């Protein structure tokens, strides 16, 4: 195994040709990768179960309650209001389930892929974010790792920072994700997400306006 900086925070002013390459101690072997893929598949199944199970049943209750409410005579406005209240509570429960599903594995990432999911997230970030991501689908593990690596990083940005570019493109057997305009110290969180798949992370540039590049092997 090649020696590396073993996860130390990268020095800020390293020249581009000797950019630090972050890897974890004891780099992931083939077995770890399989476990990592299995982990992402589990997350995906869990998220889908939330949708296909509890959520579908709860949403089906809502129109049925509406039918019941419609049978209640006008003379009983109390019951009418209680049913409306019940329906509001069901909506709240569904919203909470959706939030949980989003944290486990975003449904939009599952259904539509990395580009739409990252664009949706970019809407919530307090600095301008440009997203340039290929439409190609890469499987639950690679898409999941790339999504959580990028969003973990974007989520740590503070208002008033420089505009950020997120570019993800396939280069041979790797997905190369480049974040420009971000503090290189956030590379540690990026590495946490991608190292299980055998991914590597490099950084360069200014402490507040640098570049993080992650390379994730794809099948």
């Amino acid at each position: 195994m090649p020696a590396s900086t073993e996860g130390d925070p990268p020095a800020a002013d390293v020249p581009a040709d000797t950019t630090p390459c972050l890897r974890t101690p004891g780099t992931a072997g083939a077995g770890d990768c399989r476990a990592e893929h299995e982990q992402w598949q589990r997350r995906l199944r869990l998220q889908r179960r939330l949708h296909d199970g509890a959520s579908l049943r709860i949403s089906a209750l809502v129109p049925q309650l509406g039918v019941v409410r419609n049978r209640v005579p006008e003379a009983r406005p109390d019951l009418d209001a209680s049913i409306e209240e019940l329906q509001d509570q069901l909506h709240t429960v569904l919203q909470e389930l959706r939030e949980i599903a989003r944290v486990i594995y975003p449904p939009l990432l599952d259904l539509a892929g990395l580009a739409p999911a990252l664009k949706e997230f970019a809407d919530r970030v307090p600095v301008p974010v440009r997203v340039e991501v290929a439409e190609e689908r890469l499987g639950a593990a690679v898409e999941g790792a790339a999504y959580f690596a990028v969003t973990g990083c974007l989520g740590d940005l503070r208002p008033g920072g420089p505009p950020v570019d997120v570019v993800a493109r396939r280069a041979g057997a790797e997905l190369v994700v480049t974040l420009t305009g971000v503090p290189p110290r956030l590379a540690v969180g990026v590495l946490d997400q991608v190292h299980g798949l055998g991914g590597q992370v490099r950084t360069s540039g200014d402490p507040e306006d640098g570049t993080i590049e992650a390379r994730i092997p794809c099948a």
Partner: protein
Amino acid sequence: MRVALAEDGALFREGLLMLLRAAGHEVVGCTADGDALVELLTRQPADVAILDIRMPPEPDGGLVTAERLRAAHPGMGLLFLSHYAESHYLMRILEIGTEAIGYRLKEKVGSVDVLTDTLDRIADGEIVIEPVLAKRLVERPRGDRKEIVDSLTPRELDVLKLMAEGRSNNGIAGQLFVTPKAVEKHIANIFSKLGLQEEGSEHHRRVLAVLTYLRSQRAES
């Protein structure tokens, strides 16, 4: 009203069917996938088609089905019901059409009144957008197009948000406790700030205002 329905979840489909009938609507067809609905509607007229977004043909059969229905029956209203209120899907829906079209969460059309109000507004040619989503779009501006938002006053933002929900001027006036005249003035200001010229119908400019706004939220990269 004559309504057709395609939804692959049997539980929700049966519940919605009962609610539609309780509301006095005529359900002319009810299928578990989009292709069957397209086939059925070649023989049966309907005023509004209700579509689940995530159904066969996979992955988002509701959208491809809607494109085919809009091409074959331009006058038919389309109501998307989904488990998710995402701006990604809203943009794709607005690409299919900006009139007589709606996008709502499944559990938010759970009463005869709301369901009928939603269907009536779509049949009248309006856009109906789930309030949760409209609110999120207006309140979470993208940084790079923030100047559009910044140039609007808080009251103009309130008006634009209600426009994005497909409300009429009177509806907006009622919500904000102001006169319809005041609403018209706010809308004129919004049109001017968004750079919408005085051509085309008021409705068309409303749609464009909402679209310009929504697009500014998701600047094409």
